[in-house]
């Protein structure tokens, strides 16, 4: 069921684009049922988390890597799940009225939103760290897309990129941390890791893992100094800001810190890092919020500060792990409860405030505090919502925010008792700083309400006169502030259902829900917390009255920020540095790149050969050397060496051809008749092709433009490659760690495939799949040649080249006028074709086969063309060679798949021996049919290439 719950938003998101045909309905209505249904579903699971049993579901995914889709729903997850679906439903409702129906990209907006919803559910339900990480990054992607929703605006793109870079940086750090945890415990499951927490503490990787995981949490939850992305994320549409950037996604970091508490809480570093970072963020955010003039920026900094508050509480709460089972332990655990309570409150009041700001923006067309004021009379309901939300945020009675604020103060005051560090007197700073931050919080809450709604209406600065928003737009924030009041009335009911199970889950196995229970009341007597609140109100009012005199308001809210400058500078440095570094070696010269590749080959292969043990160069029983073999090799090498020195193209081509013929003879000597046959024909056809192509090119000049030093480098690289390959050859001879599989082919060739020519049997039967693809490659190459020659020919303006092109069209340049050749070739062609037919049928048992026969046939046709001209050949033999290739491929594939009909795998062949009248005992195998396909394809390809290059079709 849990898996289905995560999957549902993704599936729904896939359906949204299909709504294109229904333009009359706002797509938001179609989305709304998803979060609503999920909310109801998860509410139904509340009793099970209350009792502490939770829900567990697991689907194996990659068991070998320890990665399973295991989901856990406990009190802490449930709280988040309800926030995601509950606030999600309200935000979708609100967006229906906020986002105009006419916007063309509205559907993609909801696709992103649903994608976020699904991935966020995945984050808070995953028990497996790898799955959690995947969903975590998906939320970053969704956030990126939503911030950049108005992607035509420069600031939207900037904000989206910034949030992406910072959160993904943290995400990667977290990923590394997760893997360190895996290294230490051998498990990715949070529960299993937590069970081993006691053994972890002393591990040398413990602290690095903790810091890396915290980096992920801090960047996601916009903790100081990673907070800078959140104000820029306010470029997103307001429903998104309310949903992702205050209620849910930014709380993922808090979720993770609390989730990992059972693993890390025993370490004092955890306590210090988490609580101090939280405290710093709280103070910094609240102070910066006062200076903002943009309402959304104010809310952004307020969110940063409130996230810091909760983070700080979670850190302090972790101190309970130092005092297990004592009164103090329970007392520190209270901080966790406060964190949970405030998390709920924050989601409620901040969600409503964002919606209020959205309404103001919607009605007045501005969010600038300097232009706003006096909206109280025009928009009374909105004002009432803002008032309740702000007072709850400021921590004033009788709203729920007051209760969690009091608990926060209590925890901060209580921290004096944390004696393990031996610095009790410094601990009072926690309470003082927290109090100062609360004063700032109070001040900006007042600014938010009274600068917007109080004072005089500045009619001249507004485009139009604002009106009260529609009922639909107001419904969602009204519901939220009603909740704020409702929670204040029945705090203990809320505690019973949600807070206690969540706090118990965070505290780990030590506490059950009822043990974690804290009774929440408005009146505790004249406690220090109450006096602190009174002080906040007094000083806050004074500050609010006087703060304009400090000239805080007329400062620009962005750009001067040190951390923003740092971020921008780093980004620029990274860009320019990366470009400079890349330009250093990516020069654009293909030869340069080739040299890199070759040098890598030399280093990797050569290095391995030299340094790995057990590699032996050379062998004991070399084959005997004969005089003429040495002669052949020398001729071959001399021909090869002549190629670079050749002055004319034709010479270079002929020298290369000579190398090929020497290789042919070597094949023959080395007992490879099939190879010799093939090589000989291919060499002949190749040389003809070479000459065809390069007959009309300008004379081959020595590359004078190249500097000699560069050539030296080429020579050195070439020599290094040559030496490496020689070493490879010697090493391969000297050391064979595995038994060769060739014996199998020799033994099975006749038994299983009915052929005596093992090479041919391997080609058409054992490794038939290779051959099938090979002829396909050939077919593709011939089509490529055809395309390049026939399609879109653009001739260079060079008159010389144009003249040559005209010459080319006049006729086949190699037509011979030799009468002897013309007479003889008629006979010879017949002989060659007959011989090729023999080769084809003999192929299975004797040297020969489809390839060789095809090349033989093709060379016969080329001989005809040389003697009588292409046009004659075309007229006499009317064959479409492209069609021939296609036919060949079809036959090969059909033969190969034919074995399916008999229930055998692809390319299974059958064979039998028959007694035929003339041929005697003939063996017929389906492999021959396959070979026929190869034959046709290859003949087609070769002729197609020749005719295409000739330029006549």
């Amino acid at each position: 069921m849990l898996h289905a719950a995560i999957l549902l938003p993704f599936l729904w998101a896939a359906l949204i684009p299909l709504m294109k045909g229904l333009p009359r309905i706002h797509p938001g209505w179609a989305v709304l049922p998803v979060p609503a249904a999920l909310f109801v579903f998860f509410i139904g699971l509340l009793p099970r988390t209350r009792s502490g049993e939770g829900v567990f579901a697991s689907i194996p995914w990659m068991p070998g890597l320890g990665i399973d889709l295991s989901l856990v729903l406990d009190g802490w997850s449930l709280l988040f799940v309800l926030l995601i679906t509950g606030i999600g439903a309200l935000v979708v409702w609100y967006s229906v009225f906020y986002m105009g129906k006419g916007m063309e990209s509205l559907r993609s907006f909801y696709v992103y939103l649903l994608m976020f919803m699904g991935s966020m559910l995945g984050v808070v339900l995953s028990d497996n760290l790898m799955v959690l990480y995947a969903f975590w990054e998906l939320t970053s992607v969704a956030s990126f897309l939503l911030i950049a929703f108005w992607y035509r605006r420069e600031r939207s793109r900037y904000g989206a990129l910034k949030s992406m870079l910072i959160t993904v940086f943290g995400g990667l750090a977290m990923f590394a941390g997760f893997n360190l945890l895996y290294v230490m415990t051998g498990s990715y499951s949070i529960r299993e890791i937590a069970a081993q927490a006691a053994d972890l503490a002393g591990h040398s990787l413990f602290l690095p893992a903790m810091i890396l995981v915290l980096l992920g949490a801090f960047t996601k939850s916009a903790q100081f100094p990673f907070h800078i992305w959140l104000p820029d994320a306010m470029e997103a549409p307001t429903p998104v800001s309310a949903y992702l950037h205050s209620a849910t996604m930014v709380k993922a970091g808090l979720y993770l810190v609390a989730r990992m508490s059972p693993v890390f809480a025993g370490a004092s570093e955890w306590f210090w890092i988490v609580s101090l970072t939280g405290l710093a963020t709280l103070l910094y955010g609240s102070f910066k919020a006062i200076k903002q003039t943009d309402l959304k920026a104010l809310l952004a900094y307020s969110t940063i500060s409130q996230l810091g508050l909760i983070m700080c509480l979670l850190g302090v709460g972790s101190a309970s792990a130092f005092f297990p089972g004592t009164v103090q332990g329970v007392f520190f655990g209270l901080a966790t409860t406060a964190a949970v309570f405030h998390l709920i409150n924050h989601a409620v009041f901040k969600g409503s405030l964002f919606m209020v700001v959205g309404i103001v923006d919607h009605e007045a067309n501005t969010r600038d505090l300097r232009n706003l004021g006096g909206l109280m009379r025009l928009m009374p309901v909105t004002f009432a919502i803002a008032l309740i939300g702000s007072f709850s945020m400021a921590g004033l009675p009788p709203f729920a925010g007051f209760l969690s604020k009091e608990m926060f103060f209590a925890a901060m005051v209580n921290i004096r008792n944390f004696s393990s560090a031996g610095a009790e007197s410094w601990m009072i700073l926690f309470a003082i700083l927290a109090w100062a931050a609360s004063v700032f919080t109070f001040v900006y809450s007042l600014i938010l309400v009274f600068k917007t709604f109080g004072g005089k209406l500045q009619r001249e600065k507004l485009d139009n006169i604002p009106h009260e928003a529609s009922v639909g737009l107001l419904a969602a924030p009204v519901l939220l502030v009603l909740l704020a009041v409702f929670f204040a009335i029945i705090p203990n009911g809320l505690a019973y259902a949600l807070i206690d199970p969540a706090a118990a889950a965070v505290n780990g196995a030590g506490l059950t829900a009822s043990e974690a229970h804290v009774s929440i009341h408005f009146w505790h007597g004249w406690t220090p917390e109450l006096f602190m609140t009174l002080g906040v109100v007094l000083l806050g009012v004074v500050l609010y009255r006087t703060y304009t005199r400090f000239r805080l308001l007329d400062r620009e809210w962005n750009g001067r920020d040190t951390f923003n400058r740092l971020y921008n500078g780093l980004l620029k440095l990274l860009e320019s540095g990366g470009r400079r570094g890349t330009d250093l070696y990516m020069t654009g010269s293909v030869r340069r790149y080739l040299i890199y590749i070759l040098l890598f080959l030399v280093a990797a292969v050569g290095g391995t050969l030299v340094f790995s043990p057990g590699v032996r160069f050379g062998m004991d029983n070399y084959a005997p050397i004969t005089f003429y073999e040495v002669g052949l090799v020398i001729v071959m090498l001399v021909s090869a060496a002549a190629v670079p020195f050749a002055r004319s193209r034709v010479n270079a081509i002929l020298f290369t051809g000579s190398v090929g013929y020497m290789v042919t003879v070597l094949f023959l000597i080395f007992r490879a008749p099939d190879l010799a046959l093939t090589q000989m024909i291919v060499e002949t056809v190749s040389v003809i092709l070479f000459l065809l192509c390069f007959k009309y090119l300008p004379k081959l000049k020595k590359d004078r433009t190249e500097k000699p030093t560069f050539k030296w480098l080429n020579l050195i690289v070439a020599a290094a490659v040559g030496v490496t390959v020689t070493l490879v050859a010697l090493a391969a001879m000297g050391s064979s760690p595995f038994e060769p599989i060739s014996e199998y082919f020799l033994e099975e060739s006749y038994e299983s495939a009915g052929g005596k020519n093992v090479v041919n049997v391997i080609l058409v039967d054992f490794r038939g799949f290779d051959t099938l693809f090979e002829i396909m490659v050939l077919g593709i190459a011939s089509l490529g040649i055809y395309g390049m020659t026939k399609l879109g020919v653009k001739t260079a303006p060079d008159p010389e080249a144009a003249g040559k092109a005209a010459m080319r069209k006049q006729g086949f340049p190699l037509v011979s006028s030799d009468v002897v050749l013309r007479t003889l070739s008629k006979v010879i062609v017949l002989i060659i074709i007959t011989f090729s037919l023999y080769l084809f049928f003999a192929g299975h048992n004797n040297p020969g086969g489809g390839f060789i026969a095809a090349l033989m046939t093709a060379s016969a046709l080329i001989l005809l063309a040389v003697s009588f001209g292409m046009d004659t050949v075309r007229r006499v033999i009317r064959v479409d060679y492209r069609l021939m290739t296609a036919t060949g491929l079809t036959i090969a594939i059909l033969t190969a798949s034919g074995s399916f009909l008999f229930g055998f795998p692809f390319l299974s062949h059958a064979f039998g021996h028959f007694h035929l009248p003339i041929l005697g005992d003939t063996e017929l195998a389906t492999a021959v049919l396959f070979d026929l396909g190869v034959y046709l394809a290859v003949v087609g390809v070769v002729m197609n290439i020749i005719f295409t290059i000739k330029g006549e079709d």
Partner: protein
Amino acid sequence: MEWIMAVAVGVLFMIGVYLILSKSLLRIILGTSLLTHGVHLLLLTMAGLKRGAAPVLGSGGDAYADPLPQALILTSIVISFGVTALYFVLAYRAYQTRGTDEIDAADEVRGGEEES
């Protein structure tokens, strides 16, 4: 015999690589041809030379030469024929459109934004 072939293969590779690193398209193509020859001989040599008869059953003796490298090489010969033909035409077209068969650093593929 094998060590001679190993050295010969090395020399073929050296010349082939040297040609590939030059500017002229024709020389590059000829270089790939020489490399291909080198690879074929390398495959054949690695299995050991002249051990037994040609791998056609019944042609005599108990021992046969290793058929597997031969099958690989046969495939390679035909493929490299197709590829070489493609290279030719590519070079030919390059000459037709640009009036030269040399690749110049200025015309070479340049990575980065300038291209788009």
